[in-house]
């Protein structure tokens, strides 16, 4: 890009400045303007506004009110609950994910591939759909509980899917892949030569594990812990549907807004944002102290060890099959229930009556169709905007010398990623709910556009990250070669950068598209009758006990996700 040179130019040479910097400046000036405006109105203003609004009461500054709300027992308790749930979630996910990563990354045995293919499944499941599937499978009137009840002739369900246990079980099921995937990738990256060197120096297996392998794995584990903690802090669907008395902050904010208690909602939003931030900073600090750069450039690659002993193979294979079943069961249940007639499944173990009417109704009914159209449209708009936006941002941040402004832009762009969806939705709703000095008479709340905007703000960091990563992988010499061959920056962008970055960018955009399709946490706070997305339709179908309909919605969402993930995987493998 041309802009890089304007920054590198020596300012003491006025002649050079004039000749090079002027055209470059006019180009990057508009980029800075666009990026600055979007950041100001999309991120800085809404976020600051929430903090300011929380400190105000009836038009005046009132920090006392803020602290009064903050010191309410229920507020403190729910903050403590959110943190406790998240810490326990991280713990359980690590306990499940890391040993699985070792087993499946280090050894080869029958069934390994089956599990490896399914392992990341819970990650792509929309949280609401996962929650619903979990209720069908493990709820007190779900298939598992009913089976046991019928087999042992119990009068009541053997358990209730409610409270701490249920929440942690579900969180572990949906978030252990962070640890499994990242620890697995970390194990792949570790130079096998290091372990061999340690063994040759006389270290025992245990010593190699604790002194060589685990220390090198620490960055991956911290990254996984961070993702798990943040996801758990933001968790909403599960606490809503079977949290019981576990009152997490996300749910409390939602409830306070439903009650119309805006000061509590705002205070809790600020609290949730602050906790998420603190966690982010804590984990990143810790990660900074634990990063190792391999000294050697070339390493030995590890090959998976074939398990030799019959017993070992048997155990590992059974584990693979059991875990694969556990992963697939909720989705299989969802598919099964999606073919059941609404209202027919009462006390039976399995739904008694099967029909395709749920799907045909979704396809023909105007209301249900409009729900899909809404979601497709809104997710599509948000994705397209995020794609264009990420090229604007990276045009500024990913070229030339690093500067303080560029770092600020990068931080601000990634900010919404660190904020729970609830916080993003509440801050946009607060910022664009009524006319004020900064926004004029522009109001988003109650319009169709509020959801595309919220989706864009929530998920654009993912696309920016994908594009950024693709650009960083791009060999700088390619664009230099194009320049030497006579291509101006416009041609370099269209003919070299864009085609090479496109696969990675598209893969990131597709991911955002499917996540936005199933978005619930933020949607439930700001949706209007005119832009009801799929997730809201699922929730209301559940409320009306139209279980078949709710499941059918979920199955269609999952089908779309599978298609998109396959396409994205193809794109990504082509990008390498």
């Amino acid at each position, binding site marked *: 890009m041309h802009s890089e040179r304007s920054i590198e130019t020596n300012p003491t040479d006025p002649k050079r400045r004039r000749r*090079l910097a002027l055209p470059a400046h006019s180009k990057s000036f508009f980029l800075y303007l666009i990026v600055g405006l979007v950041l100001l109105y999309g991120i800085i203003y809404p976020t600051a506004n929430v903090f300011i609004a929380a400190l105000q009461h009836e038009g005046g500054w009132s920090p006392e009110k803020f602290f009064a709300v903050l010191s309410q027992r229920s507020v403190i308790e729910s903050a403590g609950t959110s943190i406790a749930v998240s810490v326990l979630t991280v713990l359980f996910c690590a306990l499940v994910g890391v040993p699985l990563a070792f087993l499946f990354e280090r050894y080869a045995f029958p069934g390994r591939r089956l599990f490896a293919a399914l392992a990341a499944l819970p990650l792509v499941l929309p949280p609401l759909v996962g929650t619903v599937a979990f209720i069908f499978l493990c709820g007190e009137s779900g298939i598992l509980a009913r089976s046991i009840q019928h087999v042992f002739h119990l009068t009541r369900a053997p358990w209730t899917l409610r409270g701490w246990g249920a929440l942690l079980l579900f969180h572990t099921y949906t978030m252990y892949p962070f640890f499994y995937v990242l620890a697995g990738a970390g194990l792949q990256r570790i130079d096998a030569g290091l372990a061999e060197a340690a063994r040759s120096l006389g270290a025992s297996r245990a010593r190699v594990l604790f002194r060589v392998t685990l220390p090198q794995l620490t960055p991956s584990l911290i990254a996984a812990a961070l993702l798990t903690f943040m996801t758990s802090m933001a968790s909403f669907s599960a606490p809503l549907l079977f949290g019981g008395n576990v009152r997490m902050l996300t749910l409390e904010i939602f409830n306070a807004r439903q009650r119309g208690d805006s000061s509590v909602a705002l205070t809790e939003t600020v609290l949730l944002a602050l906790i998420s931030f603190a966690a982010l900073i804590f984990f990143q600090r810790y990660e900074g102290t634990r990063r190792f750069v391999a000294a050697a450039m070339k390493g030995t690659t590890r090959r998976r060890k074939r398990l030799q002993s019959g017993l070992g193979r048997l155990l590992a294979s059974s584990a693979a099959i059991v875990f694969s079943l556990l992963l697939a069961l909720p989705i299989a249940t969802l598919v099964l229930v999606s073919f059941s007639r609404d209202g027919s499944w009462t006390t039976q173990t399995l739904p008694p009556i099967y029909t395709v009417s749920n799907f045909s109704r979704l396809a023909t009914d105007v209301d249900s169709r409009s729900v899909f159209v809404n979601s497709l449209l809104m997710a599509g708009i948000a994705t397209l905007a995020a794609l264009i936006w990420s090229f604007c941002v990276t045009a500024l941040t990913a070229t030339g010398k690093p500067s303080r402004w560029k770092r600020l832009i990068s931080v601000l762009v990634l900010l919404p990623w660190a904020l729970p969806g609830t916080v993003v939705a509440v801050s946009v709703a607060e910022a664009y709910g009524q006319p004020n000095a900064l926004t004029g008479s522009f109001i988003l709340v109650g319009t169709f556009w509020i959801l595309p905007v919220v989706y864009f703000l929530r998920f654009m960091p993912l696309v920016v990250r994908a594009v950024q990563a693709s650009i960083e992988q791009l060999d700088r*010499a390619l664009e230099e070669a*194009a320049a030497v*061959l*006579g291509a101006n920056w416009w041609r370099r962008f269209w003919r070299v950068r864009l085609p090479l970055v496109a696969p990675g960018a598209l893969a990131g955009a597709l991911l955002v598209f499917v996540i936005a399709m199933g978005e619930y946490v933020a949607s439930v706070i700001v949706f209007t009758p005119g832009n009801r997305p799929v997730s809201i339709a699922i929730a209301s179908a559940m409320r009306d006990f139209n279980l078949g309909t709710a499941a059918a919605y979920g199955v269609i969402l999952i089908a779309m996700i599978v298609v998109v993930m396959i396409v994205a995987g193809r794109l990504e493998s082509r990008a390498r």
Partner: protein
Amino acid sequence: MPLLNLKQISKRFGDTAAVADVSIAVERGEFFGLLGPSGCGKTTTLRIIAGLESPDTGRVEFDGREITTLSSEKRGFGMVFQNYALFPHLNVFENVAFGLRARRERGSSGGGSDGAITDKVHRALELVQLPGFDNRRVDELSGGQQQRVAIARAIAIEPSLLLFDEPLSNLDVALREETRRELRALVKRLKLTAVYVTHDQAEAFALCDRIAVMGKGSVLQMGAPRELYDHPANAAVAGFLGNNNLILAMRLTSSNDPVTRFKTIDGGHILTVNASHEELMSLPVNKPCRLAIRPEAVELNHKSGGNNQLAARIELIEFGGATTTLRVDAGGLKVEVLVLSVDEFAIGDECLVTLPSDQIRLLPHN
């Protein structure tokens, strides 16, 4: 008038001076080399010529015009990158045509109609002996073929100057030597002017008409390969160009006698040197200097006796194929000797080494 003229170019990256006060003039039709160890500033100099970096101070002139701040795409040079920088999303034809199309779009010369572009691409591919490779993907080519495509892409635009950034360093030894011969023949046949960056002394000697040896950001010496080899200007150049024995010594005689006597610091031997008046005058008084002699110039067990013959013991024998390198210890003075046959020697043997007076060059100690 030189075709390319760098005048007192300097470039800093943060606190390090990558290039400091470099002046180089390249004549039309010349194959010019920038030779030096990694980090000596040779690549930065090349990138400044290409317009990929702008110098902090100094001027770049091409064909009498100042181009210091002219952007890279307007210079009309061809460049071959170390990793070739072939566009992975384009096939061989489109890679070679890239520069021609870019020029046509900008309306400058060197592009032409589609037919003209096709002709030029095919001619370039024939020149690098890759005819018919048009539709091949670049990632299915071998390293040597990719390197040829990169050269074809650079010469297709009929560049007024051809730049090479260590283009052969990713090839294996046999291919490297073969490609290097073809490259020089090609550049000479097309009557192109080339600037070639390398850290490989043999490569620079084989390819270049003239070489600038660089170190720590500045030009240490400039000249034809033979001149650099026979008359290194200082110890740094002598050390970089082949394994010179650099013997630290003090001058004994102060006369202007052409045969001057030196006493080595290690071993305390007296050596006589045939030195020119200029060489002697350039040496600082009362300071040690370096006596440089090439390992192949040292004579082993020469019967004649005479000047500069020292008794030594063989310390090390390193078999190197056609030649063998011995390291001998002459009473504390270590000398490397290059011999063709080694059969009659063993480690620990006593021997005689002769350092012929006319083969020793005097260099300031630095």
